[in-house]
């Protein structure tokens, strides 16, 4: 049996419940959202450590603030990560499942390590919550940073293994015919690619600091000088990290097999051009980070999204070498459940407006004061949830009665 036959027969016998391109789009979109949050987690951990180490009073204040950001953004990153994890298994199942079973031990370690990183982040945040500025400690932040790097390495390895199916068999079947069931494979690290993830973390964190300065501007209990410090630090960081990320990007490009002609891929080209524009724009914003924060964030996300598309294009090139394409995956369209998802998704955006606006307004009033939110917003959000349940439960009762399974 050759690898192409293996890959194509391992596709799930049920086929896809909808067209592959839709899953691919959702995969790229949710991956981009996820990776932005992950970048923020990684970047803010290191920035927090750096600022404490420098021991200036604004830096210490910033570090404390980042401690809270860390825990929240790590949770969000994890939840956002569930979606690409799901969609990758739908269209790339032969790759994903082979890699994770060959490296099962590492796949499970991934979770252990991320849990430890999480609690270390909480240790950093809660441990310093009550501390005054002179006694802020970095120990837990270091621990968290270390575990985060391990997580990055493992997930990088799992993605890389998927790209080289031609090596799989050599890894787990020995020349004398003994098959390994240990699940301990660890292969295919590519430093250029890994760096192209780690360096942008600082760019994303830099932009986040610009947004931070813009958001808290005008709040009485935040002094102007502190916010200027944060904003300028952010713009500076974002600029240099973006510039370095471009360098790492070209390094990675150099590692891509030449026969792909990837430098001419439209997604790659668009991503690279956007990268240059973003870097130049941020470079020109160093003196006024607050005013430029929003457009910088928009550009940054657009670049990351385009680069995620390029990453997907690269994956398709790799996989086509082994005769695999998602576009000929058999499809058995299931319209009712597809509608269920998209309708829920739209409702979700509507509902999320409520916590978003509540958080936004609560952060705008100074400590000790209470923000008032239009009561209609919350009511509508909760009503939408109840309506969702009533509709689905109603549907469920009808289906159950029709199929005679209720009593």
């Amino acid at each position, binding site marked *: *049996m050759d690898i192409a036959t293996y890959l194509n027969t391992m596709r*799930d*016998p*049920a086929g*896809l*419940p*909808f067209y592959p391109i839709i899953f691919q789009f959702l995969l790229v979109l949710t991956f981009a959202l996820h990776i932005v949050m992950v970048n923020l987690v990684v970047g803010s951990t290191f920035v927090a450590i750096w600022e404490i180490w420098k021991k200036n009073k604004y830096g210490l204040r910033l570090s404390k603030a980042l401690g809270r950001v860390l825990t929240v953004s790590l*949770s969000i990153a994890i*939840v956002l990560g569930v*979606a690409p994890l*799901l969609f990758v*298994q*739908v269209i790339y199942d032969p790759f994903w*499942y082979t890699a*994770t*079973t060959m490296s*099962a031990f590492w796949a*499970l370690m*991934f*979770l252990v390590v*991320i*849990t430890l990183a999480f*609690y270390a982040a*909480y240790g950093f945040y809660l441990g310093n919550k009550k501390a005054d500025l002179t006694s802020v400690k970095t120990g837990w932040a270091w621990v968290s940073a270390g575990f985060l790097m391990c997580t990055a390495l493992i997930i990088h390895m799992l993605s890389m293994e998927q790209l080289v199916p031609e090596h799989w*068999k050599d890894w*787990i079947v020995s020349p004398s015919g003994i*098959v390994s*069931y240990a*699940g301990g494979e660890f292969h295919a690290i590519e430093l250029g690619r890994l760096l192209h993830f780690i360096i942008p973390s600082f760019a994303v964190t830099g932009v986040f600091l610009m947004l931070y300065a813009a958001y808290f501007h005008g709040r009485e209990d935040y002094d102007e000088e502190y916010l200027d410090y944060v904003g300028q630090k952010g713009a500076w960081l974002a600029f240099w990290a973006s510039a370095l990320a471009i360098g790492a990007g070209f390094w990675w490009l150099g590692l891509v097999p030449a026969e792909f002609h990837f430098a001419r891929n439209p997604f790659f080209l668009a991503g690279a051009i956007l990268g240059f524009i973003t870097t130049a724009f941020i470079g020109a914003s160093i003196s006024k980070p607050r005013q430029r924060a929003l457009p910088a964030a928009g550009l940054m996300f657009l670049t990351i999204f385009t680069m995620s598309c390029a990453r997907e294009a690269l994956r398709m090139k790799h996989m086509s070498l082994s005769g695999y394409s998602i576009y000929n995956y058999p499809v*058995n369209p*299931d319209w*009712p*459940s*597809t509608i*269920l*998802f998209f309708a*829920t*998704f739209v409702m*979700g955006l509507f509902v999320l407006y*409520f*916590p978003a606006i*509540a*958080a936004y307004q*609560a952060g705008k009033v100074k400590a000790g004061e*209470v*923000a*008032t*939110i239009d*009561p209609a917003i*919350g009511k509508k*959000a*909760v009503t939408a*949830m109840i309506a969702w*349940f009533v509709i689905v439960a109603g549907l*469920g009762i009808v*289906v*159950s009665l029709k*199929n005679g*399974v*209720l009593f």
Partner: protein
Amino acid sequence: MYPFWEVPFFTSGLVIALIATFHILPCHLATGAFWFNVYVERKAYKQNRPELLEFIKKFSLLILIFCFVIGSLSGVGIWYAATVASPRGISGLIHNYVWGWATEWVFFIIEIAAIYVYYYTIGKIDPKSHLMLGWLYAWAAWISMVIITGILAFMLSAGKWVETGGFFDGFFNETYWPQLFTRTAFMFGIAGVYAAIVASTIKNKKVKDEIIRTAGLWGVVGMLAGVVFAAWYLYKLPPHAKELWLDESLPYLSHLINIAALAYAIVFVWFVICCIVKPKLAGPVSGVIILLVLFMGIGAGEGFREGIRRPYIIDQYMYGNQIVARDIPAKHIKAEIPKFDKEGFLTHLFFKPDKIDPENSRDLLLAGNVIVHHQCGNCHALDRFGKLRPLPELLENLSPESPEDIEGLLESLGDYPYMPPFAGNDLDRKAASEYLFSIVRR
């Protein structure tokens, strides 16, 4: 078949069981606790009793740090563990229920937004809106249970799906509603235990006793309702599952049920005595003991649910060793056993020794090793000291005299109500028997 992952001694199945049991506590708490939270918060505003808010703060932080973090990570953990233990099983679920999971994901996002904003805006936004955030979380979390229960129930009883292949036909199957109601009732029980433990650390004695009593009441009501729904659930089990349990084909199933029932009774008595009658007794120590009891009870209950599914991992559709058991015409799915019987199992494997000479005994053993791992390894440990039904021991009980005796066993394997038939041609069976015979001690 995907590469097989073997966990020495422990077996991958038990790894899932452990993570799954560990997941149930935080996740039922994450779904249930906020109903209690908003109830207390509402009371605090209505009766103008700010002292109750101290509890809200403590309880929310616990929910956030323990349930939400551990709950979401161990949830992903079950998924990963299931993936590495049974990749084709999880693939089968995902390819039929991807939109279900994606829908659930939307509610996860709402949950996380609501819980963080709720926690960080205590005292910072107007009470009405804050309470609404609590409601939002409570609904989102419970709806995530409404969804996942459909997929869990599908694994136990696939319902009309086997005929129609329809998402909702499989989702709203015969065990869906009883399971949803049972889980919802337990959820209040578990929330009651945690609430009592957290409340026992409050300084104000009056508030403390009041909240513990309320928590006890919630627990008692939840658990009483749970008994009724659980009975309905057991009654609605598919006939095949009931047989395995009631005919004592697998005696350990009744043991599991008994353990679960005993744990249940202990927790119930604890609620009555230590929460309602004498709230003094509900301290962190007795609370943690009760948590352990709960942990055991849940483990037994979920073990039962897994056990009665034999020989399938997905009811009627896929066997525990990840081989497709029947045609699903609506999805163009074909049963795999006839194919493997005709064309051979080994020929359809990719990860195997390159050349196998049927006359060479070493080759035969190597081939048998691969076949047995794939066909038996999901349910049996292959090393003698393995924890899960170790095959060497089970085979020794049958005292086979030769590989041919084992071939006979393999031919009739499908006659056991809890095992799939052996899949493969004569060569596969011969290789598997040679290997199995080699691990038996004589």
